[in-house]
């Protein structure tokens, strides 16, 4: 090949890279988020932590529930396998997002509401990066879920009401329901209700035989990787349903005043 052809190749490679890079523009507010994360870490801990840690107990509930639907033993036996979710305050949005914004963030548009009739109002929107990991701890699948948090007047620290949605198929969703689930039908959609105890534990925690038994019965969920390595127990309820290729889940953690009917009614409000 002659020199001109070589130069032509150089030019072509450069052009192909520039062309491809034109697809990518830096998201707005990125520095704002970087600065907030740095300041938050400084204020809270005095040390830096990377954003992709398993931070939020709520994430474990979501992970725990899906794990129950796939395989129970792997959660009890090892921390390596299962579904792991991580989110960051960097990407949290505090204004009620438009459908376009949600679609841009997670790649699909679920149904969602700004407030519920029982007084819960939209608080934050975020996405969660989920990874399905095999027994070696390697990620075999990765997907994003949309996460809407709600609060009401007088909400206390540690209380969580959250709705998440993600793309899935009906087979995976209905495949293995939690054992203590009950269901009602509304407008042709099956709403599945469960309640259980949730235990957030440090990584490496070994469940007792009694806990394993409760897990098998669907009465206890264990989430690994609690912050500050502490064990925290909470009561939770959830309603789940599958609609138009998306699975939905509303989780209530420690709002003990909410009844089963309250939870089901919230699901109905979203279904519409």
């Amino acid at each position, binding site marked *: 090949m002659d020199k001109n052809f070589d130069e032509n190749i150089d030019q072509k490679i450069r052009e192909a890279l520039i062309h*491809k*890079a034109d*697809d990518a*523009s830096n998201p707005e507010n*990125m*520095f704002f988020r970087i600065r907030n994360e740095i*300041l938050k870490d400084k204020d809270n801990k005095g040390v830096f932590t990377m954003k992709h840690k398993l931070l939020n107990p709520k994430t474990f509930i979501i992970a725990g529930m899906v794990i129950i639907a796939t395989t129970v033993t792997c959660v009890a036996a090892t921390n390596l396998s299962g579904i792991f979710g991580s989110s960051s305050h960097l990407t949290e949005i505090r204004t009620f997002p438009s459908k376009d914004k949600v679609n841009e963030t997670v790649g*699909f548009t679920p149904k969602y509401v700004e407030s519920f009739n029982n007084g819960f109002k939209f608080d934050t929107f975020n996405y969660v990066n989920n990874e399905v990991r095999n027994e070696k701890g390697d990620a075999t699948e990765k997907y*994003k879920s949309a996460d809407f948090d709600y609060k009401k007047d007088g909400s206390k620290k540690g209380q969580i009401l959250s709705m998440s949605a993600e793309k899935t198929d009906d087979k995976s969703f209905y495949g293995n329901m939690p054992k203590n689930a009950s269901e009602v039908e509304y407008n042709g959609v099956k709403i599945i209700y469960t309640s259980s105890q949730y235990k957030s534990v440090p990584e490496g925690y070994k469940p007792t035989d009694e806990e394993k038994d409760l897990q098998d019965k669907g009465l206890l969920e264990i989430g690994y990787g609690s912050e500050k390595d502490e064990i925290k127990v909470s009561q939770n309820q959830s309603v789940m349903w599958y609609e138009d290729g998306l699975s939905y889940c509303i989780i209530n953690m420690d709002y003990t005043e909410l009844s089963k009917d309250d939870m089901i009614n919230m699901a109905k409000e979203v279904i519409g």
Partner: protein
Amino acid sequence: MSEEELVIKIQSGDMNALGELFEIYKNESFKYSYLITGSKYTSEDIVQEAFISCYKNIKSLKNPEFFKSWFFKMLTRIAWRYAKKDKKSLPVDNIFEKLDEKNIDTSIEQYLRKEQNNNLYAEIEKLDLKQKTVIVLYYFNGLTVSEIAKVMGCFEGTVKSRLHSARKKLKSSLIKCNDEYNHRNLKRVGLDG
């Protein structure tokens, strides 16, 4: 304010200086991460993590004049980690991103040119991670072989060798691509006639 002065200010904890440096490198680092991973979502995480890590570790940078290669070394390590992780996963977000891509070209020439670029980039994507990094740093970021060696933490000879073999692979695919392009052009002329 010069880049060196900004680095010194960041070393003393000046967040505004980090903001100024971010403005200088945000696009280059984001596009670089995107070319390495092929995912905008992942690139966002990479750049954020890199700047947080930059603020945390910048005191270890003895010579502020070497900031760019120091920063890109860190960025590259983070990008590699994400790229390796993504390789094991189903690239769900990439699928959505591809759906977002718009094809509004009006002329066939433009379309074919775009297709050529896409084909060539597809070949770049097939290169192993280190060859791809060398290609992106050299052709897109305009770094010299010596700078790339610093970023990648290897000998200049290794960079040259990776560059050479990557170019060779791309050259053969470009020839193939050109043949196809010419063939299609001929076909088009034939149809027009």
